[in-house]
C-alpha cells in the first residue's frame, strides 16, 4: 500500500481545500447507548477540529434531526469546492425495512436514499460515509458512487445487533499507531484497517460470535469487501482520502524554500516504491542493500527539510 501512502501524503500536501465533517449520533434507545453514542460523536468532534481548514458539524441528542443533517449537507453543497473532502459519520442504531436502510434519529429516520441524494449535491470530489450502525451494510448499495468511500460496520442488513466498530473508529483517529505509513495523516483506509482489526479482536477475546463484519466499498460498483487490497481493487480511493491530519507536514507544504527538498523527497520515495515492486525479481541481498541506501538518502533529505 506504499503507493497509496505516497498518494495520501501528496494529497495531504496539496490540501488547502476544506474538509467537511458531519458527524451524527443517533438515538440510543436507552440512556446507556445514548450516552455512548453522544460521547463518541463529541470525541470525534474534538479530533477533527485539529485538522486545518475543517468545517465541522456534530449533531448529538435532540439536535440529531433529519432537517439538521440536510441543512449541513446543503451548506457543503452550496459552499464546497471540488477539491474539498466530505466525511459523513453515523453513530448509533440502524435498521432495514426490506426496501431501504434507515438511520435511527429523533423524529423521522433518515434513509440511505435520502443521504445519497443530499450527498450527490455536494461538489467535493472525495467523499466518505462511515456508517457504524447496526444493519449498515444495507446502506452500501444505495450510497455507492464514483469517488465515494463507504464504510459500514456490518456486512449486511442481517447483522442487526449493536456494533462495537464506532469506538474503534474513533480510537483510530486518535491513536498514532493507526497511521501505519507514518505520514502524519490517518487515511480512511488506515482507519478502516485499524478499527476492523480491533473489532475482530474484541469478539475473539470475548469468545463471542462476531455479530458485525465491517465492509469497505470505494469502487462505485461493488457491495464492499472485508479486506481491501490490490487483489480486489478496493482501497485505492480510501487510501487517498485523509480522515485526520496531525503533525507538521502541513506547515512544510506551505514553506516555499522547502519545495525543492520536498520534490527530491518525492523522487526518492518513488524510487523506493519502484524497488519494492521489483523485490521479487532481485536477490534478497541486493534488495536489502538498495533499500538501505535509498532509505538512508530519504532520511538525509528529511533531515534537511526538518532543519
Amino acid at each position, binding site marked *: 500500500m506504499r503507493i497509496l501512502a505516497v498518494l495520501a501524503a501528496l494529497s495531504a500536501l496539496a490540501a488547502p481545500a476544506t474538509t467537511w465533517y458531519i458527524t451524527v449520533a443517533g438515538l440510543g434507545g436507552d440512556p446507556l447507548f445514548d450516552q455512548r453514542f453522544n460521547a463518541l460523536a463529541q470525541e470525534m468532534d474534538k479530533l477533527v477540529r485539529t485538522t486545518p481548514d475543517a468545517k465541522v458539524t456534530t449533531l448529538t441528542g435532540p439536535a440529531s434531526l433529519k432537517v439538521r443533517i440536510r441543512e449541513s449537507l446543503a451548506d457543503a453543497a452550496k459552499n464546497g469546492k471540488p477539491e474539498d473532502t466530505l466525511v459523513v459519520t453515523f453513530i448509533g442504531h440502524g435498521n432495514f425495512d426490506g426496501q431501504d436502510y434507515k438511520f435511527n434519529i429523533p423524529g423521522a429516520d433518515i434513509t440511505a436514499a435520502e443521504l445519497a441524494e443530499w450527498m450527490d449535491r455536494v461538489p467535493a470530489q472525495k467523499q466518505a460515509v462511515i456508517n457504524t450502525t447496526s444493519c449498515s451494510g444495507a446502506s452500501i448499495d444505495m450510497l455507492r458512487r464514483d469517488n465515494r468511500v463507504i464504510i459500514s460496520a456490518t456486512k449486511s442488513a442481517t447483522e442487526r445487533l449493536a456494533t462495537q466498530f464506532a469506538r474503534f473508529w474513533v480510537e483510530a483517529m486518535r491513536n498514532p499507531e493507526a497511521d501505519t505509513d*507514518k505520514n502524519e495523516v490517518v487515511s480512511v483506509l488506515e482507519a478502516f484497517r485499524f478499527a476492523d482489526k480491533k473489532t475482530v479482536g474484541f469478539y475473539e477475546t470475548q469468545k463471542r460470535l462476531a455479530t458485525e463484519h465491517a465492509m469497505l466499498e470505494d469502487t462505485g460498483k461493488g457491495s464492499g469487501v472485508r479486506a481491501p487490497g490490490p487483489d480486489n481493487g478496493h482501497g485505492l480511493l480510501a487510501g487517498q482520502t485523509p480522515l485526520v491530519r496531525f503533525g507538521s507536514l502541513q506547515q512544510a507544504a506551505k514553506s516555499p524554500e522547502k519545495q525543492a527538498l520536498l520534490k527530491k523527497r518525492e523522487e526518492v520515495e518513488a524510487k523506493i516504491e519502484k524497488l519494492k515492486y521489483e523485490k521479487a525479481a532481485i536477490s534478497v541481498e541486493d534488495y536489502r542493500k538498495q533499500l538501505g541506501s535509498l532509505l538512508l538518502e*530519504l532520511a538525509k533529505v528529511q533531515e534537511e527539510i526538518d532543519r
Partner: protein
Amino acid sequence: MRWLAVLALFAPLASAATLEECREHKRRGRLPEARTCWSALSQSHDAALQAEALWALRDYNSANERFRSAVAQKPKDALVRVRWGRMFFERGQRKEAAQLYEEAIGIQADFPPALIGLAYLASSGFESKAVELAEKALEKDPKLFEAREMLARFALEEYDEKRAIEQADKALAISQEALDALVIRATVEWLNDKPGTEWIARLDKTNPNYGEGYAMAANMFIINRRYEEGIALYRKALNKNPDLLAAKAELGVNLMRLGAESEARQLLKECYDANWRTAPVTNTLTLMDSYKNFVTFEKGMLILRVHKKEAELLRPYFEAELERASNVFEKKYQLKLTKPVQLEVYPDHEDFAVRTMGLPGLGALGVTFGNVVAMDSPSGRKPGTFHWASTLWHELSHVYALAVTKHRVPRWFTEGLAVHEETAVNTEWGDRLDPATIRAIKDKKLLPVASLDRGFVRPSYPAQVTVSYFQAGKICDYINSKWGWQKLVDMLRDFGTGKTTPEVIEAHLGLKPEQFDKDFLAWLDTQVGEQVKGFDAWRKNIAVANALVKEKKWDEVIKTAEPIVRSYPDYVESGSAYELLAEASEKKGDKAKAIAILEQWAKVGGRQPETLKKLAALLEEAGHKRQAAETLERINYIYPVQDDEYHRRQGELWLEVGEKDRAIREFTAVVGSKPVDVAGSYYNLAKALRAAGRNDQARDNVILALEAAPSFRPAQKLLLELSK
C-alpha cells in the same frame, strides 16, 4: 445375550440360518462361518433378524431401515428397540441410543437389556450412574453375567483391581464362558506385568479370535496412560479380527496422540472408507488435515508445534517455559528423558477437544500422552480464565512422572504432583481454593487417599474432578512440607514397581492410609479452615458489596469489602472483593491503597488481564516503573495474545528501567502479533536493540520499519544515527 436367544426362538424360519447360530459362530470366533451365516440371515423375512444380520455385515443404513420396520411391526417389543439402540451406541450416536433405551423401558419397566444399554452409555461418559444401572439390571436378573462383566470393567476403570476380580469371578460363576470376564482377569494380570496365561488359555478355548477382548484390554491400558502397551493390544485385537473397525479407529486415534501421524491417518482413512464415520474418526481426520496450519520448532530434545497465526508471538514464551520446566524437572525428578518432548498448542479449543476425547476426568486445559503434550493456546480461552504457563508446567510434570514410573503411576499421584508443581514454580500460579471445593470440604466429600482415583474417573457429583485435583495437589503439598521433596520422588519410584497407594503410603510415610487421611485433613484445616468457615459470610457480603458499588457508596464499600477479603482471600476471580476495594479506594483518592490491594490480589493469584493493566497503570503513575513492568509481565503467562499495546508498554517500561533484554523480548512480541502499526513496532524493537548494543540487528529492524513507512521520521533519525 439370553434375550437374543429368546428373540431367535420366536423368529420365523425364513432362512436356513438362525440368529443363535450366527451369534454362536461369532462367539466361538468362527469368523468366516459367522459371515456366511449373517449373509444368509440377512435374507430373512423378519425385519428384526434382517436388521441384526445387516448390522453384523456393517450395512448400517440398511440395518437402520430394517430396525425401523421391525419397530413398526412390533411396537411393543422392547428388545428390538434396545438392539437398535445398541447399534446407534456402537456408531457413537448417543442421543438416538438413549432415546431407544428409554422407549424400551417405557414398554417394559426396568427392562434389563435397556438398563445395560444405558449403563454403557453412562460409562462412555464416565458417569457414576453407570454402576447403579448395571446393579439395577442385576437386581432384575441376577443371572445376567453381562452386568457383572460391566461392573468388573467399571471397577478396573476406577483402578480398583480387587473389585474388578470379584465381579469378573461372579460373572464366571454364572457362565464359564463369560468372555469379557476372562479378559478382565487377564487384563488385571497384564497391568501388573504378569502373563495372564490361564485366562487367555480359557479365552482361546472358547473363542481364539476374540479381538473385542483385546480391544477392551487396550482401552484399560490407555485409561492407565500406558499408551504404547495399549497400542500393542489394539494391534493384537486387529490381528485376531481385522474387521474390528472400532478397534482400528482407536488404534488410529492413539497413534495420532503419540505423534505417529502417518500410520494413524492411514488407519483412520480405512475406517472412514469402510463407512465407519464416527465422530472420533472424522474429527481426528479433520484435525490432522489442519496440521498443515501448524509450524514445528525443534530445540534439542524439545519440540514445539504452534498454529501459524500465532507462532511468531507465542514461540519465545512457550520455548522459554518449556526449557525452564525441563531443566527444573530433570533435577527434581532425577531423570534425563531419553525421548524428545513434543508440546502442541491449539488455538481452537475444539481441536484440542478432538485431541483429548474419550479420556476420563480431564481438566480440559492440557493433556499428556507419554512424551506428547497437547494444550489449549491462551487464545483458545477467555482472558483471565486460563494460566497457560501453569498448565504447561502441570503437563510437563506428567511427562516426568510417567517416565519415572514407566506409566505405572496412579492417577491421583501424578495429578497431585502436577498441581503441586504449578505453585512450586511460582506461588502466584496454580488454582486457588474455589467455592465448589469449599462446599466439598464442608460436606466432608473429600475421598480417602486409597480411593482418590475414583474422583478423577467416575465423579459422583459435578465438581468432583476439580475437587480431586485440589485434594491430590494438597496431599502432595502436605507430604512435601512434612517429609520433604525426596519422599515424593521415592514414592513415585515405588509406584513404578507396581505397588498400590496403601502400600506406598505405609512403606514411605509409616502410616496406614486411614491415619494418613486423618492427619492430612487436620493439616488441610490449618491451611484452609478459616476460609471454609468464612465462606457463607463471604457469599452473603460479596452481594452486599456489589450493590454498594452500584450505588457508589465508596466508604461503605471499603467498610464491607475489607472483611470479605480477609474471610476468603483465595477468591481472586472476576468481581472479587479485592477489585471492589481497589475501585472504592481509588474513587476516594487513595491510590496507594488501591495499589496495595491489587498487588495483594495479584500475589494471591489474581489473573484478570484488565485488572493487571490497571494495577500497572497505577504503579506507573506513582513512579514505580519496574513494578509496573513486572505487573504487565504477569500477563505474558496468562493472555499474551490479542493485545500488542500491553507488550509495547511493557517494552517501553523495561527500556526505561534498563532491562534491555526484556524490552527486546516484548518489542519482538509486538512484531510477532502482526500489529496494524508495523513500522512503529519494528522501530521500537530497533531502539531496544540499539540500547543493548546490538547495532546490526537494530539497523535491520529500522530498515524494516522504514520499508513499511519510508517517511517515518523517528525511524529515519535512528537510521542516520546507526549509519554514522
